[in-house]
């Protein structure tokens, strides 16, 4: 599949540009609710890009977990703390921090572009259709589930402990410390 179809390329660029524009809108919004909704747009575009990169299961999980669960938690906290209104002018840092941000941003972009131009290791590279063929062979979920429950079983189990610790920690930290509560 050396020559990717034009339609595919066009859509990939389309979703990439949507993601970047939404991300730019996201960091420039004053209102946290508007910022959160722009971030949801970015995450949906990223889900579309995952699907186009032959990672259909990851795309579905992206919509369910990121756009569905994590962002809803963010919006819930914003509304719980009544921060939906645009905050005051002190929200953006001063000139010094903006200069630092510009320098760091340019440096990181330059570094990553240099890395992108480097060549990949040909011995490790799979044939171009390998990911698509794996999805056709074992299904979109099976292509992820088989290594997850064989090679990566121990990390998967450790993840459950991490989630339990996170639940307990979140409840303990967020608990109301009233007069009669101990």
């Amino acid at each position, binding site marked *: 599949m050396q020559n990717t179809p034009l339609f595919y390329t066009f859509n*990939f*660029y389309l979703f990439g540009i949507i*993601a*970047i524009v939404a*991300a*730019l809108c*996201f*960091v420039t919004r004053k209102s946290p609710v508007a*910022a959160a909704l722009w*971030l949801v747009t*970015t*995450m949906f575009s*990223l889900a579309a*890009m*995952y699907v186009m*990169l*032959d990672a259909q299961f*990851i795309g579905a*999980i*992206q919509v369910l977990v*990121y756009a569905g669960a*994590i962002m809803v*938690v*963010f919006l819930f*906290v914003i509304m719980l*703390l009544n*921060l939906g209104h645009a*905050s*005051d002018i002190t*929200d*953006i*840092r001063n000139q010094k*921090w*903006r200069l630092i*941000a*510009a320098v*760091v*941003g340019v440096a*990181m*972009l330059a570094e*990553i572009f240099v890395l*992108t131009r480097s060549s990949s290791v040909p011995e*490790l*590279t*799979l044939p171009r259709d*390998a*990911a698509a063929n794996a999805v056709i062979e074992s299904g979109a979920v099976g*292509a*992820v589930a088989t*290594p*997850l429950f064989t090679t990566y079983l121990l990390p998967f189990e450790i*993840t459950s402990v*991490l989630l339990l*610790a*996170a*639940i307990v*920690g*979140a409840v303990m*930290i*967020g608990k109301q410390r009233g007069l009669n509560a101990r």
Partner: protein
Amino acid sequence: MLAEALFFSAVLFTIGVIGVLTRRNAIIIFMCVELMLNAVNLTFVAFSRAYGAAGQIFVFFAMTVAAAEAAVGLAIIIALFRHKQTVNLQHINILKG
């Protein structure tokens, strides 16, 4: 598509870094961190197409860790808000010397 995906991922990550450095609202900074995690996930997925399914497994774990991090981080923000009545980091400076 690998080079294009890496390009978009790099730009998204940089936007996230700039957001972390220039904003003072704790919740927006937290969302910028999520954006950076998403950019890295895009890199993983793009590489997994060329180097095998391990990249997608990593994205799976990264999403799990991000969910846990969001829960704990937002709980910390709620606890901070209860003390200070603000999430503006300019007013949360009790560790400043």
